[in-house]
């Protein structure tokens, strides 16, 4: 694949990410310690245009694609995984608006996102529903012009600080559970009550307590067709999510490996053992495998999008689910090995020069961030429908 020439606006976005990295890195320890949303860092990402990475040129953004999303997610994660995940999840929602927002919603909202005025959170979990993304319990009420939202959600990443929310709701009180509508709501269209707190092992800065939302929105704020959130999920929310999250986890793990290698070089050759060599090699393998698979699935999705082809094909769905599970498992495995290599003083202590224990805790979230268990069950079923075993890349085609 040839790298496409980046526009000036995109080059600026990459430069902005690199320039922000020292600040991202410097704030990471305090963000983790306090489990508080990194407001100052996110303000920097608003001001430098990165919150609008996926906003197309015609709406004032640099027109980044999912490949740019992956690259910048990984770069930010090398400094702070919480910050990177907050930014990545916001960008996931932006992709939904870009591809499925009504023209009025896109005209109103995308320039503001590009200007850094709107940080988006998603509201897709419901008490008692489990992690079943494509079903809804609470239903939209009201009328065709004004949609009433009454919704409780146990986890909303960045909910306390979001300016806007993408909310899944059952299409109507009469609709079956699988007819889900996605709507956009501005913070000031809602009254919001926090219902929980956030004190977790890792990803502590994502500050994702539960909330109860109540309000009304006009019909043009429906994203995609009413009842057809599944299409938005398949074509946008899920692929952007899995690619971006894998980028975050990989960026964090790769930086951790790099930091440990620097430390080992400083220790000197006589301190190396064969066990250490084997562990380093395997950590490297973990990171390489994730990078290779992430790149392959990214390219598959980009090619399908360029061709205007749906991502609903069985093989593509399998690959996207594989990516999430592989990235979650392999990056955590890599940092687990790194803690063992680094030893107690460097790997296990919080005040070590290398933030390994934080990255270890952050990456333990990966298999839980939409449970791998569900994805593996899905893929088991889907794989039965793909007896040809269509690989990505399709090297035997």
């Amino acid at each position, binding site marked *: 694949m040839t790298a496409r020439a980046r526009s000036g606006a995109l080059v600026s976005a990459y430069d902005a990410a690199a320039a922000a990295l020292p600040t991202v890195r410097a704030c990471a320890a305090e963000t983790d310690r306090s489990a508080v949303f990194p407001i100052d860092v996110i303000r920097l990402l608003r001001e430098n245009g990165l919150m609008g990475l996926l906003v197309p040129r015609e709406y004032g953004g640099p027109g980044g694609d999912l490949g740019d999303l992956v690259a910048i997610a990984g770069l930010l994660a090398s400094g702070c995984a919480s910050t990177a995940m907050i930014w990545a999840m916001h960008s996931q929602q932006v992709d939904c608006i870009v591809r499925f927002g009504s023209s009025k919603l896109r005209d109103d909202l995308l320039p503001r996102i590009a200007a850094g005025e709107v940080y988006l959170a998603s509201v897709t979990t419901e008490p008692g529903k489990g992690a079943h993304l494509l079903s809804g319990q609470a239903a939209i009420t009201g009328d065709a012009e004004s949609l009433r939202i009454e919704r409780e959600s146990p986890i909303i990443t960045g909910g306390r600080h979001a300016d806007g929310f993408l909310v899944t709701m059952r299409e109507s009180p009469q609709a079956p559970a699988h007819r889900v509508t996605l709507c956009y709501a501005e913070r000031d269209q809602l009254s919001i009550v926090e219902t929980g707190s956030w004190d977790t092992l890792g990803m502590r800065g994502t500050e994702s307590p539960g909330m109860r939302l109540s309000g009304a929105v006009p019909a043009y704020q429906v994203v995609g067709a009413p009842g057809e959130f599944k299409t938005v999920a398949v074509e946008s929310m899920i692929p952007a999510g899995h690619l971006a999250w894998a980028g975050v986890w990989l960026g964090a793990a790769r930086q951790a490996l790099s930091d440990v290698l620097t430390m080992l070089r400083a220790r000197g050759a006589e301190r190396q053992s064969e066990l250490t060599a084997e562990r380093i090699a395997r950590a490297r393998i973990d990171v390489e495998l994730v990078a290779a698979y992430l790149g392959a699935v990214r390219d598959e999705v980009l090619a399908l999008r360029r061709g205007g082809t749906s991502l609903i094909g069985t093989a593509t769905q399998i690959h996207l689910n594989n990516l999430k599970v592989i990235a979650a498992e392999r990056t955590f495995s890599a940092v687990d090995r790194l803690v063992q290599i680094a030893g107690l003083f460097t790997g296990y202590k919080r005040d070590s020069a290398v933030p390994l224990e934080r990255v270890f805790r952050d990456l333990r979230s990966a298999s839980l961030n939409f449970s791998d268990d569900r994805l593996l*069950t899905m893929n088991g079923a889907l794989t039965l*429908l793909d007896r040809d075993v269509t690989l990505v890349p399709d090297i035997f085609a």
Partner: protein
Amino acid sequence: MSVPQWPAEFEEILQRHLPLSDGPIDGSALLADLGLDSLGTVSLVMELEDSMDIAIPDDLLVAETFTSADSLWAAVSSLLEGAAAA
């Protein structure tokens, strides 16, 4: 009295995979609305292949085939005719 659109065996197998179905299956009703999800689809495919002695090729395992009972029967009956002609 209406002519049955498909054999009773097909109706029985399909009914077992439509938890929200209430009475005889309407040919044009959306199977997703009647409770067919991805996991159910896999199980449905395997049971159809087993009981009706057909092999459903992967290129028929697309969303269009499973839209409605009519679309599914169209796929299955074409395979049965093909098998009978062979």
